């Protein structure tokens, strides 16, 4: 049941990679719930969890991986997170593909400059799993903290190739070129969402969560390159 109290605010803590998707869903939600404003606070997943644990006045938490969400679950900050999207890895190369990268095997070649995410972060874990599935050993020159850092280096041509998410290649437009990784080896990453246990507006939070998981939400997510369950 939607509240009709004017000037209610529902605050959503969301992973930075969801900036565009949640931005547009927030508009939809506000249109459906007059008098309600959605406040979106984007940061890295683990910052979000730290904030949630510290009692951030927020209602919804959406992270880019299940491991960080699990920390919120363990601390009883959320209950029953639901997976609303997934993302799989892809090779990104600078426009024109100057190093003539054709597939994962080229990323195992030490003469090429390659950027991956560090295994501690979701995109790095996914990259490692992908190489393992393909039976290759990667030869990275750098293990970045997040996808953004990999992407920046690809865009600037500092590296010949990097492993990022499909959504990132889609968002980067013509600044990078994507090379698909075969579906049987490409690792995927799940995005969980949950209502915070201390949410001030649990009903609205649930409504927003429902919107994200609805077909409307799935359409927006898919157009940004996400997979949906």
């Amino acid at each position, binding site marked *: 049941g939607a509240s009709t109290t004017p000037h209610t605010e529902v*605050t959503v*803590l969301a992973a*930075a*990679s969801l*900036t*565009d998707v949640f931005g547009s869903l927030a508009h939809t939600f506000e249109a459906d719930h007059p008098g309600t404003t959605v*406040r*979106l*606070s*984007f*940061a890295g997943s683990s*910052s979000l969890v*730290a*904030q949630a*644990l*510290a*009692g*951030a*006045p*927020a209602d919804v938490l959406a992270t880019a991986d299940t491991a960080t969400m699990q920390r919120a679950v363990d601390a009883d900050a959320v209950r029953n997170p639901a997976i609303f999207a997934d993302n799989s890895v892809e090779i990104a190369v600078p426009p024109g593909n100057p190093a003539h990268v054709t597939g994962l095997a080229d990323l195992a070649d030490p003469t090429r400059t390659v950027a991956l995410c560090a295994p501690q972060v979701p995109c790095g874990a996914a990259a490692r799993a992908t190489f393992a599935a393909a039976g290759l050993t990667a030869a990275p020159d750098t293990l970045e903290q997040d996808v*953004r850092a990999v*992407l*920046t280096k690809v*865009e600037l041509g500092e590296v010949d190739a990097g492993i990022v998410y499909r959504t990132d290649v889609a*968002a980067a437009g013509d*600044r990078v070129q994507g090379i698909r990784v075969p579906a049987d080896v490409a690792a995927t990453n799940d995005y969980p969402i949950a209502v915070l246990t201390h949410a001030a507006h649990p009903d609205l939070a649930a409504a927003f969560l429902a919107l994200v998981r609805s077909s409307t939400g799935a359409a927006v997510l898919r157009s940004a390159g996400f997979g949906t369950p």
Partner: protein
Amino acid sequence: MPRGLGALAVLGAAFLVLPPAALVWRAPWGSTLHRLADPATLEALRLSLVSASSATALSLVLGVPLAWFLARSAARRVRLLRALVTVPLVLPPVVGGVALLLLLGRRGLLGQYLDAWFGVQIPFTTLAVVLAEAFVAMPFLVVSVEGALRGLDRRFEDAAATLGAGAWYTARRVVLPAVAPGLAAGTALCFARALGEFGATITFAGSLPGTTRTMPLAIYLALQSDPAAAITLSLVLLVASVVVLVALRERWVPELRP
């Protein structure tokens, strides 16, 4: 200036000025200029300037007395305090933000009482932005001002005292003017650092448009989706800060006599 130093000075200036110049050179002006007129950008810029100024003011109010104390205490046990004061410089800002949450968060060591007794919650407010920025930036002020106070010739304070001036009057008319260059440098550093603060802010204050999303946070977000726009925003932030810093200098640093 000793001969030979000139070449090093030029090299130093080049090292600091060329990278931003490259940024300007490569900036995709045409395609992103519309971002400048975006109300969200102006909002973030306004919030940045307001919170950085407030953080600087807070740092001045608390930091100058602290610097004074540190500069004038010969005691051995003050040495540790002096080192501790520089801790926020080294702490990765994100960890600084965590530290602030642990102290002032709703469940923090102090924050739980603030909440229970006064109903005050600091995180995720503009006050949190100011505190995060001050926490990170104040040490710059303290260290600079302490250096300036230490270099001061104490005999002028003696002279003021024998003229009947109390400690406050002496501080205002004699000491502060004499440390003005150091104070200005420290204030500039502090303001600049506060303006550029990112990690502690996003952790302690979150990133809510209009309330806690300062320019560096907006830039970080833009970087996720539109790196070109992020660079343009950075340049906006730069220009704003250079304007403020130049104004500050003109006001505070006495003209050099030839």
